[in-house]
C-alpha cells in the first residue's frame, strides 16, 4: 500500500523529479508537496484505488498528511467497512 501511495504522490505531485525523496512520516503540507487541489486529487485517488470515501469531517491533515497517516486512515476505514 505504501508503494502505491508513494508512486501516486511521486507521479502526481512531484512529477517523478529526481532529488525529491519522501519519507513515510514527511508532512505533505510542510514539504509543500500538496496544495488545496492536491487534497481533492488525493481524495479522488483514495476512492478510485482503495474504495475509501473520505467524509467531510475526516478531511483533516491528521488523516491524510503523510504516507504513514494515509496507511492508518485507509486501514481504519477498511476495517469499519468490513
Amino acid at each position, binding site marked *: 500500500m505504501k508503494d502505491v501511495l508513494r508512486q501516486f504522490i511521486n507521479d*502526481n505531485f512531484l*512529477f517523478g523529479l529526481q532529488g525529491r525523496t519522501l519519507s513515510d512520516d514527511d508532512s505533505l503540507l510542510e514539504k509543500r508537496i500538496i496544495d*488545496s*487541489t492536491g487534497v481533492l*486529487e488525493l481524495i479522488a485517488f483514495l476512492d478510485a484505488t482503495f474504495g475509501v470515501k473520505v467524509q467531510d469531517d475526516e*478531511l483533516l491533515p491528521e488523516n491524510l498528511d503523510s504516507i504513514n497517516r494515509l496507511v492508518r486512515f485507509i486501514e481504519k476505514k477498511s476495517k469499519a467497512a468490513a
Partner: protein
Amino acid sequence: MHNESGTVSIVFNGEIFNFLELRQELIRKGCRFRTQSDTEVILRLYETKGEECVHDLNGQWAFAIWDKNKQKLFLSRDRLGIAPLFYTQAEGAFIFGSEIKAIFADSRVARRVDTAGLNEIFTFWVNLPPRTFFEKIRELPPGHSLSLKDGEIRITPYWRLDYPSAQQLRRAVDERECAQRLLELLVDATRLRLRADVPVGAYLSGGLDSSAIAAIVRRYTDTPLKTFSVSFEEAEFDESRHQREVAGALGTEHREVPCSYGDIGRVFPRVVWHAEKPLLRTAPAPLYLLSRLMRESGYKVVLTGEGSDEIFGGYDLFKEAKIRRFWGVRPESQMRPLLLKRLYPYLPKVQAQSPAYLEAFFHVGAQEVSSRLFSHLPRWELTSKLKMFLSPEALHRVADSDLYGEIEAQLPEDYDRWDNFSRAQYLEAKYLLPGYLLSSQADRVAMAHSIEARYPFLDHRVVEFANALPPRLKMKVLREKYILKRATTGLVPESIRNRVKQPYRSPDGKSFFAGGAREYAEAALSPERIGRHGIFQPAAVRKLVEKVRLGHAIGIKDNMAFVGVLSTQLVVDQFIDHFGEVQ
C-alpha cells in the same frame, strides 16, 4: 511624417484622444497645420515644448522623433503601457519597434532566450521592464521616455502611479461628490475615446466595468453602439446570460462568438505569436477570437472595461490580502475559514475544503505579514512552483537571482508611506497590467486582427482621481469597487451592479486535447523537442502532459505549468528555431 524643413521627423503608433484640443491651442499660439492628424499634433507639440510635450498628451502611444538639429532620437511610451515599445542595440545600430518580431527581422539582431526573463515570467507572470523574454531585447517601461544622443541612452520617467500617504488619507471626503466626479470623468474619457472616423464597438464581459462603459456610450452620446461578447461551452466560465441581459437593457445590437476547448487550442499558437512571450493561462485566446469577430463585422475600434479592477481594487487578490492580513494579526479568529469560502464563491475546489485544510493552506506567518510585497506573495509563490519543471541547466542559470529583491529595488520612495491596499494596487497596476493584461490579453490579441482597443478607465485623469481616493471608497469591508458601483447607480442594471464578481477565466489544459491542437501540442512537448530546447526536464513534462491528458490536472498550478511549458516551447519554435517561417 516630417516638419516643413525636414528637421523633425516622427513615427507613431497609437492614438492621442485630446488632439483636437491640443491642435486648437497650438493654432492659437501661431502653429500651422498641414493635416488633420494626431501625428502632426505630436510633431508640433514637440517643436514647441520639446520632451515635455508628453505631459499634454491624453492617449495610448509609442512614438519616435528624430530631431536632426540636435542629432537626438526621442522615444516615448504612454503612461500605463497600453502601446508596446521595444528596442535593442546591435552592431552599432539602435533598433526599435512596437513588436519584437519587427526587431528580429533585422539580421544584425541575435535571437536568444534570456533565462532570467523566463525566471521572471515563471514568478510574476510578466517581465520587469526593461527585461524581456529575449536576451538584449529591451522594453521601454510605461510612463518613460528614452533619448539617444551621441551614442548615449538616457531613460527618464515622466509620470508614475501615485497614492496618498496615511496623513493625506485622514482628510474627510464626501462620497456623493466623489461618485459624481468619477462619473463625469468617465463620461469624458469615454467621449474622447469615441473620436474615430470608423464605427466604434464595445466588449461586454457581463460584469460591471464593460457594462458601465457601454451604458455611458448609450446614455451620454449619440454614437450608435454594437456590442460583442465571448461565450463558453462550459458553464463554469460562461457569462453569456449576463452579457445578454446588459445588451438587452442597453438596447445594443449584440453579437457573440462561442468559444470551445477546441477553438482555444487551435488558435493558441497564433496567440503566442502575437504575445511574444510565454503565457501561463489561455485567457488571451478567447479574446483573440473576439477581435476576429469584430473584424469580420467591419469594426476597427473597440471600447473595453480593462483597467477598472486595478484602479478600483476589483480583483480577489485585494480581498485576499485584506483577509490574510487579518489572519496574520488575529490568528485566533474563528471566522477565518468562513472568510475564505466567502472570498471564492465561484471556486468549488475551495468550497470543498475542510476548515483544517483551509487553515493550513492559508497560514500567514509573521515574516510574511512584514513583507513589503505581502499582497502578491501567494500568487508569486504559487507561480514559482512551476520552476520545478526547469532543466538543471536552466535552474543553475537563475540560481543566484533574487527576484523579490529586484522588484523591491524598483519600488518608489513613497511606497512605504502608502497604506497596504494602495501598495497592492501599485504592484498590480505597475507590473501585471501592462505586462500581461494590456499586452497579452488586450492590445496584442486585438491588434492581431487590426482592432484598436481603447480603455476609458485608463484615461490618466481617471487613474489619478481613483488613486487619490481613500481605499475605503474602493473596497468597503469586502465589497469591491464600491465607489464605481455608487457612481453607476441607475446607469448599469442593478443585477449586474450587485453581481458577485466573477473573474474572467478560460479553460486551460483541456483545450489542448480536443480538436486539432493535440498534434502540435504533443510535438512541442515531446521529450525530443523539450530536450533539444534544453529549458525543461523531459521526463517531468511527460508526466505533467499525461496528468493533463487524463483530466487529472484539476488545479491552477498544474494547468499553469502545462500552458507555461507549452507556450515557452512555442515561443522558442516560432521566434528562434523557425523565425520567418510562420505564416
